[in-house]
């Protein structure tokens, strides 16, 4: 199935119409959204009939030392297009992003994995705890400053 990636410009335009003041900036095929509006943006992306992102491919996070990017890869099977949404949280301690569990239930384990390995909390997640490492493990091993 050939999937067309939506351009950042197109996506940013549609998002700023659907969820006001949510887009921070955009680039090639990526849009950065305001961390506090992540759940609204997710709901809009899923429910808007011209976007129709029913499927969440993956949630990942990137450590840039001063800030973290949380990345959402989305696909619409009906419209055969895909999108990349990012959100940027600054700092290294007690980071949190709203959970998209109530929009896409597949986010459950993905968000727990991001918390386990990168240390970004997801507010509103029904079971926010480590998934792979044991309780009591110190630190988040995929961070740049781990060891």
């Amino acid at each position, binding site marked *: 199935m050939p999937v067309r990636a939506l351009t950042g410009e197109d996506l940013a335009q549609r998002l700023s119409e659907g969820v006001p003041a949510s887009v921070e900036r955009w680039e090639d095929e990526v849009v950065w959204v305001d961390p506090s509006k992540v759940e609204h943006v997710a709901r809009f992306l899923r429910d808007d009939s011209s976007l129709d992102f029913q499927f969440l491919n993956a949630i990942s996070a990137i450590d840039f030392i001063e800030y973290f990017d949380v990345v959402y890869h989305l696909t619409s099977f009906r419209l055969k297009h895909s999108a990349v949404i990012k959100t940027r949280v600054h700092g290294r301690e007690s980071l949190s992003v709203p959970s998209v569990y109530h929009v896409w239930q597949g986010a459950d384990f993905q968000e727990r994995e991001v918390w386990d390995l990168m240390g970004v909390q997801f507010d509103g*997640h029904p*079971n926010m*705890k480590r998934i*792979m490492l*044991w309780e*009591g*493990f110190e630190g988040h*091993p995929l961070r740049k400053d*781990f060891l």
Partner: protein
Amino acid sequence: MSAEISNTDGPLNSRTWEIDREEGRTVQGLKDASIEPLAEPFIQVPDDLQGNLVVTSVDALINWSRKAALWPVTFGLACCAFEMIATAMGRFDIARFGMEAFRASPRQADLMIVAGTVTWKMAPAIQRIYDQMADPKWVISMGVCATSGGPYYGSYSVVPGVDHIIPVDVYVPGCPPRPDALLFGIMELHEKIKKYRNIGKSARPPISEQVTRQTTQLDDGVPGSPTNSQGNP
């Protein structure tokens, strides 16, 4: 597990906290205790009984029957498991050695083939399965991950060799080892079993207790005299 899920309201993680902490304590305790590889299992025979003709003949018979019907416990941890499965299938046919009965219960098995990467979170489960196997029991460490951690050596989550948590009889190198290599390891184990002496043997305490004992000694500051981890004289 003594902790239970409470019936109070709130997110699931706040109700299962005690279970997770208990598991975490188990894993961390084992990780802190298992700093040295355990010695290879070895059973000593008193001098005056060495070479006793009748006993050696009985030994040979018992050992022959043991080696010819070595039942492995179904235990695959990572990609090595596929090579182990291939070994059991028709082309390599482990049934030639009377080993085709992969048992789902450790109570019915004599051999544990540790096939794959051992993580610290899996380690208590491996130890428990090993303890549940009936004596005499043997362990093959299959592949570099199980032998020394392999590509994950020094990782925060991987045991640096399964011999840190259970004693190992035969190591099979490879990443993963081909079925022929595993078969060679199995035949080496057969040779080892043939030399097994069945008298003068004391019952082994569960391995989980031995590891705790070792740490207690280290804590007391007794400088590292290699302890016989099998608890034999």
